[in-house]
C-alpha cells in the first residue's frame, strides 16, 4: 500500500525538470517596455502546467469538430450556392472541390504544427515561432482583421436569411430591403458582442447541438435533393438546368470567392490550448471538419445547380437555397432552409468572434499589442477589450453589406496565413528547435506543405482586384505597426 500524503512536491514540479521544458525564450520589449509573457510549461493530455498554475483542457473531439464545422458551414451552404452557381453552373461543385483540396493541403501542416504547439493563438503562434516577429505580427493582426471581415460576412448572410424569414411569415419590408439587411446584421453583431462579454453560461454544448441539428437537417435535405437531381424521385422541379462553365479560369475564380467557406478548420487551432489529448484530437478535428464540409458543399452545389438555371440562381442571390428548398419541398422546405441558414450563420459568426478574441490574446501575450487588449473582467470572466476590438469593426463592416468584398478580403488574409503556416512548417522542420516534437507528422517530407503554400498564394491571384487591394492595405498597415511598436521583440524559435 502506497502511503498517502508523503510530503513531497507535487508531481508537476518534478516533471518541470524534464526535457519537455522549453529552452529558448522570447526576448526584447515593445515600445512601451512590455516583454512577451513566456513561462516554461509542461503539456499533458489533460492540462497545461505552468510554474504556479494549471490550465485544464476541457474540449473534446466533438467540441473541436463543432468549432470547425460550425464556423465553416454557414457560408458554404447557405450563402454561396446562389452566387457561385450563377457564375459557373454545376462547375461550381468543382470550385468547392478545389477549395476543399487547398483547405486539406493546409490542414495537414496545421495539424502537425498544432500538435507540436498546442496553444491559444493558432496560426499566429506557429508563424511567429517559425518565421519570426515581422511575419508573426503581420499574421497575428491580419488574423484578427480577417476574422472581423469573415464575421461581418456571416452577419450579412444572417441578415439576408432573416429578411427571407420575415417575407415567409408575411411581413413585407417595402422598397429598401438592403437597409433591413444591414440593420439586422448590425443588431446581430451588437447582440453577439454583448452576449460574449456578459454570457457566462457555457454555450459550447449549445454550439454542439446546433451543429448536430444542422448536419442532420442538411443530410436529409440533400439526400432528397440528390434523389430528385438524379431522377429517382420527381418533386416537380423545373427541368431547366444550370448552364455549366467547365473552364479553369472561371472555376478558380469562383473557388477564390467561395474559399471563405473553408475558413474555420484553422480556428480549431486557436483553441488548441484547451483541447484534451491534443496530439490526437487536433488533427482529427481539423481534417475531419474539412472532409465533412467539403462533401456537404459539393453535394449542395450539385443539387442547387440541378434544380435551377444559372439565371434563376443569380436572381435568388444570397438566399438561393431558400428557393431551392421551396422548389423541392414547398413552403416547409423553404422554412427548413431559412431556419438552417439562421442557425448556421449565427454559429459561424459566434465561433468567429470567439476565435478573434483568442487571436488578439495570442498577439497581446507576446507584447505585439498593448497588454490591456487582453484584459479580462472578474465579473463575467470575459475578455471584454478583445471582444470589443472584434465586435466594433464587425458592426461597421456588416453595415456595408458587401458580401463578395467581405468574403474575399477575409479569404485573402486567411490565405496569406495558410501559405505562411506551410512555409513555417518547412522552416521549423529545417531548424528543428529542441522542443519541436509533433505527435502528428505530415507524410511525404516538404511536398504537401510546399504545394499547400503555392496553392494558398496562387488562389489569391484569382480574386477581384479590389479585394486584393484591401488585403494588401491591411498587410502594409500591420507591417507598419511592427516597425513602430514591436521591432525589438524576438520570437523566432522561442516557445
Amino acid at each position, binding site marked *: *500500500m*502506497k*502511503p*498517502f*500524503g508523503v*510530503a513531497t512536491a*507535487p*508531481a508537476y514540479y518534478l516533471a518541470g525538470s524534464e526535457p519537455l521544458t522549453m529552452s529558448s525564450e522570447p526576448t526584447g520589449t515593445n515600445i512601451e517596455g512590455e516583454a512577451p*509573457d513566456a513561462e516554461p510549461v509542461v503539456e499533458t493530455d*489533460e*492540462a*497545461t502546467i*505552468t510554474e*504556479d*498554475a*494549471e*490550465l*485544464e483542457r*476541457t*474540449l473534446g473531439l466533438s467540441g473541436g469538430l463543432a468549432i470547425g464545422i460550425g464556423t465553416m458551414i454557414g457560408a458554404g451552404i447557405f450563402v454561396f450556392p446562389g452566387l457561385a452557381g450563377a457564375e459557373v453552373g454545376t462547375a461550381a461543385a468543382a470550385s468547392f472541390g478545389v477549395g476543399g483540396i487547398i483547405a486539406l493541403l493546409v490542414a495537414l501542416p496545421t495539424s502537425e504544427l498544432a500538435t507540436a504547439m498546442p*496553444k*491559444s493563438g493558432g496560426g499566429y503562434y506557429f508563424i511567429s515561432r517559425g518565421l519570426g516577429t515581422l511575419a508573426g505580427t503581420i499574421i497575428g493582426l491580419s488574423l484578427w482583421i480577417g476574422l472581423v471581415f469573415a464575421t461581418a460576412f456571416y452577419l450579412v448572410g444572417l441578415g439576408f436569411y432573416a429578411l427571407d424569414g420575415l417575407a415567409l411569415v408575411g411581413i413585407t419590408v417595402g422598397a429598401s430591403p438592403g437597409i433591413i439587411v444591414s440593420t439586422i446584421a448590425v443588431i446581430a453583431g451588437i447582440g453577439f458582442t454583448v452576449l*460574449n*462579454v456578459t*454570457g*457566462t*453560461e*457555457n*454555450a*459550447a454544448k449549445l454550439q454542439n447541438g446546433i451543429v448536430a441539428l444542422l448536419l442532420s437537417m442538411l443530410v436529409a435535405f440533400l439526400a432528397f435533393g440528390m434523389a430528385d437531381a438524379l431522377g429517382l424521385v420527381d418533386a416537380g422541379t423545373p427541368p431547366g438546368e444550370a448552364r455549366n462553365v467547365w473552364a479553369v479560369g472561371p472555376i478558380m475564380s469562383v473557388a477564390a470567392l467561395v474559399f471563405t467557406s473553408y475558413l474555420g478548420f484553422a480556428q480549431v487551432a486557436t*483553441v488548441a*490550448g*484547451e483541447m484534451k489529448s491534443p496530439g490526437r484530437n487536433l488533427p482529427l478535428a481539423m481534417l475531419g471538419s474539412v472532409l465533412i464540409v467539403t462533401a456537404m458543399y459539393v453535394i449542395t452545389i450539385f443539387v442547387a445547380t440541378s434544380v435551377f438555371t444559372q439565371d434563376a440562381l443569380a436572381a435568388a442571390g444570397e438566399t438561393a437555397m431558400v428557393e431551392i428548398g421551396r422548389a423541392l419541398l414547398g413552403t416547409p422546405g423553404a422554412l427548413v432552409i431559412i431556419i438552417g441558414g439562421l442557425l448556421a450563420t449565427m454559429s459561424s459568426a459566434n465561433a468567429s468572434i*470567439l476565435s478573434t*478574441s*483568442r487571436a488578439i*490574446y495570442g498577439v497581446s*501575450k507576446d507584447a505585439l499589442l498593448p497588454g490591456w487588449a*487582453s*484584459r*479580462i473582467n*472578474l465579473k*463575467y*470572466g*470575459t*475578455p471584454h477589450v478583445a*471582444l470589443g476590438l472584434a465586435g466594433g469593426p464587425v458592426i461597421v463592416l456588416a453595415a456595408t453589406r458587401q458580401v463578395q468584398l467581405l468574403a474575399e478580403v477575409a479569404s485573402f488574409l486567411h490565405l496569406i496565413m495558410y501559405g505562411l503556416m506551410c512555409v513555417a512548417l518547412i522552416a521549423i522542420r529545417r531548424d528543428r528547435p529542441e522542443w519541436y516534437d509533433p505527435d502528428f507528422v505530415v507524410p511525404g517530407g516538404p511536398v504537401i506543405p510546399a504545394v499547400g503554400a503555392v496553392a494558398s498564394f496562387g488562389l489569391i491571384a484569382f480574386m477581384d482586384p479590389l479585394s486584393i487591394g484591401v488585403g494588401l492595405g491591411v498587410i502594409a498597415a500591420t507591417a507598419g505597426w511592427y516597425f513602430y511598436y514591436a521591432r525589438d521583440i524576438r520570437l523566432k524559435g522561442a516557445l
Partner: protein
Amino acid sequence: MSRVLVPVEVLAGKTVAPGLMTLLGTVDVTVLGYHVLPEQTPPDQARHQYEERATAALEDLSEEFRAAGGAADHRLVFTHDREQTVTRIADEITANAFAISGMTGDVDTILVSLSGDVAVDRITAFVTELIGDREIAVTLLLASGAEAAVDDRLETAATQLREAGIDTNTSTAAGSPFDSLMDAAPTHDAIVIGEAAPSLRSLVFGDEAERVAASSVGPVLVVRREEEKAEATDSEQ
C-alpha cells in the same frame, strides 16, 4: 495518512470555514484553488491576470490549514469545467475524500450516511482517522431499503467506530436516502457521505454529493470510491 481535497473558488472570494479547517486538522489537505471561465476566455489569459492574486490567497489558506494541524499544499487551476478539474486533481493526489465547504463553527457532531451503493469500509476508516482522539460524536444513518435487509453494515460500522473510542449512535429512517439525510442534517455540524457510482439517477438529478451540499448549510465530506488506477499501481509494487 488520508488526504482530503478542498476545492475553493478562490477568486470569487470564497474561503474555508474555520470549523472545517479544525475538523480536517487530523488529515493532510490539498487546497484546490479553481476558477471557472466562460468559453470565450482562454484559461491562460485568466492565469496571466489573476495568478498572483490567487496564489497569495491559496498560500494563506494552506498556512491556516497547517496551523490547524495537518500538512497542507495547494494547486491552482483555471478551467472551463469544475467537475473535470476536481476529479482530475483528486485522482492525481489519490485523495480519499473531498470537501464541499459550508458554514460551520466548531464541529461536535458528524452525520455519516451509509445509504446506497457506497464503500462502507472506506467511510468507516476515513471517519476513524478524521476524528482521531477528539470528542466528536458520530451518528450513522441508514435509510431503510434493500441494503438494510441484506447486510448488517450499520452494526458492523458502529462496532468498528466504538472500538476506536468514538461516541457512536445509529439511526435508521424510512424514506429516500436523500430526504432522511436532510431530515437529520440540521442537528449535526458536518456530513460525511460516500461517492456513489455514477448511475442513471445521478445523471438525471445531479451528483448526489452536490445535491446534499446544496441543500445543507454545513460542510460535506465526500469519501471517494476505490480507485482502480491506484489499485493497479499498488499491486505492481
